[in-house]
């Protein structure tokens, strides 16, 4: 299996998408809504961009098409659901660790406080 750190740093879009899939398997529109919610509306994905991202993450082996279905009441027959892979989880965790390291630096935290005004 490839080294998870070789995928870093992740683009915010990829990070948000993987984060959304870490919690549950989702279809395209579900990923869009989850990412939009998580980013406070800053990232709004249209189908073209979203599915190109899916195609790329599939190729990289970070996600997979799901054969399991979520709870029956929220299931939507027509849709293809996506799930995060083991490698995907490792990459996500590595990225989180990288960001946490960055934040443990005092000068970065001071800057962040300034940025929030």
């Amino acid at each position, binding site marked *: 299996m490839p080294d998870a750190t070789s995928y870093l740093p992740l683009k915010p879009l990829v990070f948000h998408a993987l984060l959304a899939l870490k919690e549950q398997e989702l279809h395209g*529109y579900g990923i869009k809504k989850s990412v939009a919610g998580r980013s406070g509306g800053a990232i709004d994905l249209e*189908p073209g961009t979203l599915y190109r991202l899916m195609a790329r993450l599939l190729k990289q082996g970070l996600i997979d098409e799901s054969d399991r279905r979520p709870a029956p009441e929220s299931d939507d027959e027509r849709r293809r659901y996506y799930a995060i892979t083991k490698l995907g989880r490792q990459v996500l965790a590595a990225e989180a660790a990288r960001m946490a390291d960055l934040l443990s630096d005092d000068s970065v935290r001071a800057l962040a406080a300034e940025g929030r005004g």
Partner: protein
Amino acid sequence: MMLGLYRTLLYLYPGWYRRRFGRDMAEMFADELAVAKGIGIMKVIRLSLRTFADLLVNVPIVRLHPDRLTACPPVRQVSLMQNLFRDIRLALRSLTKHPLFAAIAVLTIALGIGANSAIFSVVNGVMLKPLPYQEASRLVMVWTAFPDNPKFPISIAEYLDYRTESDAVANVGAYSVQPVTVTGSGTAERRQASYTSRSLFDVLGASASIGRTFSEDEDTPGGADVAILSHAYWQSRYGGEPSVVGTQTLIVDGTPYDIIGIMPADFEPPMNAPAFYLPAPFDRSTIVNRSSHNWNAVARLKPGTTFEVAEAELRTILPRWEEEFAGIHPNDPVNHPLWLMPLTDEVFGAVRPMLWVLLGAVGLVLLLATANVANLLLARGELRGREMGIRGALGAGRRDLIQQMLTESVVLATAGGVAGLVVAAGLMTMFKALDPGGVPRLEQVSLDWSVLGFTAAITLGTGVLFGLLPALQAARNDVKAALQEGGRGGSTGRQSKRALQTLVVTQMAFAVVLLIGSGVLIKSFLTLQSVDPGFQTEHRVAFGLQILNDTYPAEADKVAFYDRLREELTAIPGVSGVALARGLPLRSRIGSEGIMVEGRPVGPDGGQPSQSVDFQVASDNYFKLMGIPLVHGRAIEPTDVADAPLVILINEAAAQAYFEGENPIGQRARLMFSPRDWPNVTIVGVVGDVHQRGLASTARPEIYLPHRQLPPGWARSILASLNIVLRTDLPLGAIAPTIRQTVQRLDPNVPVSGLGTLDQALANNVATERFVTMLLTLFAAVALVISAVGVYGVMAFSVARRTREIGIRLALGAEPGQVVGSILKSALTIALIGGGIGLVTAFLATSVLESLVYQVSVRDAVVFIVSPIVLVLVALVASLVPAWRAAAVHPMETLRAE
């Protein structure tokens, strides 16, 4: 419809990609569309534009780097790309071989696309972008009305009561924008101040970008004097220095206000852009006066409450108020209600019809341009029959031929689209320069991503549209026939000709629609411009000024200031007269009053008209200087001073309304809103009507009070801010500095504002009409030129194809005149059919102009007759050259060439 279009556009993706993701993408778009439909049409349009732009961005990336994506078949894509590149190479080669053809086609498309992108960018920037307020769809304006004035600001008591009593709205904010004088560093300046309730910022969902907005203490009477600056004013007066917050004071009308905050750059209250915000503290229990109506109010509907619910609630509140305030200016559900208007309608209502008409017009222009290029391609396809035949014989499939032709037209369209962006940028610069003033947010319009997306979409659309017909035509070509006929085409030639003619007829029809539309607007504009404003505008220069009540506390001080000012201005060489007025016609609004004629019963049954009258204040010499005719009696004289008998003049409309059949001179009347102890006034003169509020609105009854005879309370506010008009033969540029110096010398704290000529005021009054008329005329002219080129093209083509036949006819003894006649006849037939269809279409379509015209029928007979005639003439002129060429055909040479 959108979904179907999207599904079709998904075919732009490679097949392997589409098969894997296409269905899911369409499903996702369907979900988003369903959500957007629940919000409104604007949301749907924005979503569609974004999604199409997103598609156009992603297709090339997928096609260029398929190897990074899953499910990509490794070998196939290379040949696909190669195919595409080969077609593009072929297209470029073919186009560069015929530079004239390519240039004409690109130019035509560039004009069409450029005009569309420019108008779309205006529509997008002005109407499609959300208003800069949180959840603007839940905001409503609160207005009141009077019998003769359907839309009026509300009073502070009405605002406070509505705020307390409404359950449908979450909160209401009020503001009143007034001109004030700012003194302090440098010269005094006139600025717009917004007296603002604290709640306004909450309602609009705005907070200060630096510092804060008003606190609760500052919003109650006796609170501190504090000010919040607009971003623009902060930049211009303080150079954007953040430290002014909390340290500097702003001196407004002599009172210092501490600066506590700066608003963000994109914030301004609806319909106003004040320089700064001052608190408007009120205590409901101390307010008795319900009749002073000068507050704009915005309410935010509670979540889940609809506009209709809020309206229905008002209908239950108003009767309550009618009872509660009986005797003290009660509200009345019929004559003096409060009413609501969605904020988006308020801001865009006036320009919406204009922008849609312009967008429709440029859409037609683009269709015309597309038809022209399709014509060119068809004619060329005809000549290229042989090339296609050979390629077919060498093994190119139908599909390959269509694909190649389509690639060619898309390459053409793309070149046109890129050139069109340049045209669009030029047009937008022109729009902004011509800004009629009435278009909200015009200055923010720019070529942004949505405009680029729109341009890309119409470029692709037109490319496919004008390429499709010729491509199919080329592919239908029978190899054998094409080779045998030496590329001249037999049956396919006739088909081409019919297609060409159909396109030209369509063009003619559209051109007639545009001609008629612009004709109606031109006639309306001329009618409006020929309206007599009721006064002279040439050689008149006007300005406004504001004097401080602190410097000139008494009425006599103010009058003395104006006397000195008039004296000094009259002394300027080249100035032949100076007069004062409260607000000059077509330049500024004046207030309303009511009059009650002495000796007549009061009350609705007593025959006293209950309407309000425009309330003008003027000095002696005003009527003479403005060229307003004196109809009866006398004008205002210098002797009409404070202790002389009180007089007023009325205009003819007022004489008609109050004294029909009677002589108004010598009649006495009470000014309805004057103090109780103020004596009745005597009418001493009747003057002509002036269009105070604009050329398009009819003159209203108006009264004129001498500026030296005002009740003291009125004098304080009215005399603080008068307009000065002077008559001079000097140009504005020559006299303006002298005027400023004169005022400055008298009192450096008095700012001069709105210095300009009355000619300018008259021109500004019709600026919006001029803007839309000019643009539509421009589009109609472009349409005419394009259709002339179309007619020329189809005739030239027909002559070229028939050279041999014409040669034979001439050899057999036909007169050249007959040949010319037959060519002109077929041009005439095309023009008549097209013109006829256009007439019918225009008859059905011009009703969209209804709200844009002034006293002209949108089905004006003259316009409907003249426009098709113009078109027929243009068509005949355009076919003269081909006809002449046909007549000049040399019989022997033609036959020998065979």
